[in-house]
């Protein structure tokens, strides 16, 4: 009974939310399947069946894209050919590659939400972190490699932290609403990156595109497996370590307690002698720093070159992710793995069936909606509210 209460029930709502979102997404897939719907007047039943089959094909492509083909994995078990092994594990490693930045940005959002501030600016902090790291790598390119990597990570983290600190400072000192300032800073960050990538120092010789010189030839985050075409690097391990650290910080340290207290009730926290302004600034700087480190590892690990579209919505996805995770670091990791799988699997779905990846953004929005409004899910599945603290969201 306690296991049911403590582990299954809290996970049930998010799972139902994801499931329901996919059902609604499928309905959209069906009604936008114009080619198929053309046959509807003549053969309604056949059309419906064909439509359902198409949806099934799309989702199975997504699962294979995210986790690999079972037969290939089985074959790889008994093979020693690195190519066979790589081919089998590539989808799952790509899922992990896609979830690494999401873990960082998800933790960043979670830590700010816990403190009661809405950091909508994770996207900007992410790309500025990457930008800071890029500049650092090119400036200190002659420094020995391990040192250079650490230096770049520090500078990237600090760049993100600064970009998070600004709205935190403004909120604490002047009361400027952080949602507004972080939204605006996202745009300023994007413009800064575009502006920076115009400079001769950063851009490849003779290029007119908003990209930087190739960084992976100077330094890159070491790979975990030495297999062909496997991009999984130690950034993923760092992401997991960060999740543990953040979890410890939020739930076990004094500072973390203060942050949570400020997030729970700012006035009460102030009354208890907690420096509320300081908590807000700290939370925003930490949040920005996590995002910045995520950006750094993305540019120096996965991509190897800075560009203006380095982040494909990692910062915005993180908001959905943190909510789905109830702002718990463990939940963030789980949700990031799920979203990473969706991204990688969605890629194969797009290639195989032509269904745009953007469907997943819509599904994500539905997920947040269902998580944020649990009453919706409860009414769909006719769930009863058990007791006051039974199914309460969060």
């Amino acid at each position, binding site marked *: 009974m306690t296991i049911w209460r403590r582990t299954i029930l809290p996970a049930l709502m998010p799972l139902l939310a994801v499931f329901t979102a996919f059902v609604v997404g499928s309905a959209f897939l069906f009604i936008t399947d114009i080619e198929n719907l053309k046959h509807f007047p003549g053969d309604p039943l056949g059309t419906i069946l064909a439509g359902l089959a198409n949806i099934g094909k799309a989702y199975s492509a997504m699962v294979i894209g995210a986790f690999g083909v079972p037969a290939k994995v089985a074959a790889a078990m008994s093979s020693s050919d690195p190519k066979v092994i790589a081919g089998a594990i590539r989808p799952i490693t790509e899922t992990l590659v896609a979830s690494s930045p999401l873990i960082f940005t998800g933790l960043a959002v979670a830590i700010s939400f816990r403190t009661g501030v809405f950091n909508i600016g994770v996207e900007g902090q992410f790309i500025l972190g990457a930008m800071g790291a890029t500049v650092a790598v090119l400036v200190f390119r002659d420094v020995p490699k391990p040192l250079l990597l650490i230096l770049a990570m520090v500078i990237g983290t600090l760049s993100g932290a600064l970009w998070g600190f600004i709205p935190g400072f403004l909120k604490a000192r*002047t009361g400027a609403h952080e949602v507004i300032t972080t939204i605006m800073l996202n745009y300023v960050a994007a413009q800064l990156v575009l502006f920076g990538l115009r400079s001769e120092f950063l851009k490849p010789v003779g290029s007119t595109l908003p990209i930087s010189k190739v960084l992976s030839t100077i330094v890159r985050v070491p790979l975990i497996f030495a297999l062909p075409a496997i991009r999984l690097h130690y950034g993923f391990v760092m992401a997991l370590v960060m999740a543990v650290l953040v979890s410890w910080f939020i739930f076990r340290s004094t500072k973390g307690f203060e942050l949570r207290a400020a997030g729970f009730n700012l006035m009460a926290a102030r009354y208890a002698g907690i420096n509320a302004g300081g908590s807000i600034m700290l939370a925003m700087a930490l949040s920005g720093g996590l995002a910045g480190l995520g950006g750094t590892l993305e540019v120096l690990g996965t991509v190897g070159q800075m560009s203006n579209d380095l982040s494909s919505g990692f910062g915005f996805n993180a*908001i959905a992710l943190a909510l789905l995770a109830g702002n718990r670091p463990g939940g963030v990791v789980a949700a990031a793995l799920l979203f990473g799988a969706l991204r990688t699997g969605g890629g194969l779905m797009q290639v195989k069936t032509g269904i*745009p990846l953007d469907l997943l953004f*819509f599904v994500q*929005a539905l997920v947040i*909606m269902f998580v944020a409004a649990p009453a919706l899910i409860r009414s769909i599945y006719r769930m009863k509210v058990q007791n006051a603290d039974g199914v309460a969201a969060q």
Partner: protein
Amino acid sequence: MTSVVGAARALEMGEAERRGLQAARIRGAVIALLGVAGLWAARGAFNVAATFSFWLLEQGGAAWSITTTVGMLWLVAGSVAIVVGGLQAGVGARFPWRQSLFVLAPLYVAAILGALLDGKVANMTGVFAGSLELAVPITLGALAGILSERSGMLNIAIEGKFLVGACAGAIAASITDSAVAGVLVAVLCGMAVGYMLAWLGIRHQVDQIIAGVVINIGAIGITNFVFLRVLAKNTWLNTPPTIEKIKIPVLSGIPVVGPLLFSGTPYLYFTLAVVVFLSYMLFRTRWGLRLRASGEKPSAAATVGIDVIRIRYGAMLLAGALAGLAGSYLSLSSAGSFQMGMSAGRGFIALAAVIFGAWNPLGAFGAALMFGFSDAIQSLMSILGVDVPPQLLNSVPYIVTIVVVAGLVGRVRGPAAAGQPYTQG
């Protein structure tokens, strides 16, 4: 005892006054320094001509132009700044320095513009007309923001409503072959999204920021999805009839003003009308008072019998309609078809205009004009081949907004209860 308190108060006031004076002196010194910088820039710039021309009736027709030199522009701007700075430092806190910025800023903008153009002729009627056109969607979006926030609902979903309106409008207009039908559908879809935001925020008490984020992400997802999956292959669904410019008879014949204000799209006329109408409605009618009361102190409003929930739903529907209309402008008037992500952050600039305009329709329109102006200047520069990094001008609205929200130049205050859920007791 009373005398002690009195003395303490006097001391306190003296302290506040002293601080005010100090702040005024610093401010004055900064403004005067700007003036000196202006004068310094004037040296050696007297041989560079600055020509601003104004088309009288139509683009390319007869023009009236002012020719001066860049040095002269700097000289005027610099001297005025020195005078203003001196007055500020001398008179102290009572000097209306915020108002004086309205004089100083245009002078400096003109001087900087002249310096950037470096002798080239700038067609200002084009720039101003461009600013107005660019200001239309931003103003409509900002009005939507004002309506919702004044009623107590934080609205960061303007961007999402733009996209939905633009997409739905283009499809509906293409199917029915009627631009008006497209506009109507866009408005209805905007209202539907507005209703959803209200429903999540009011009925389900979802945090209004989260609800806004949900709608933005969902709107981007669904419109991109529809574009890629349906519109890209079926182009007939995305070739709407467009809404053309209409010249208002007589009035469009007024020199300079005619081509600016009376030769635009119906959207422009409608926007101007709504700005005036909403200013009146918000501040001069019972409905407006009730709406503002719901946003400032809903519990107090409820005690005098105002149905806060109803007011908020109404405001959100109206806001959705305006934002949907702005969306239809993007696809049916300025671009002529729906494109992915075509709102390009304008919804957030509209949010900036709400704040910069201090939650006031006229102010928001002014802010939208300013943002439109910085856009128009940018396209003028690229036409004339002046190399200014566009990123710098692009950042202006965002930085200005941060400065204003932080109260660094003239603090503004939003509706007190915006963003807080309200439960009817």
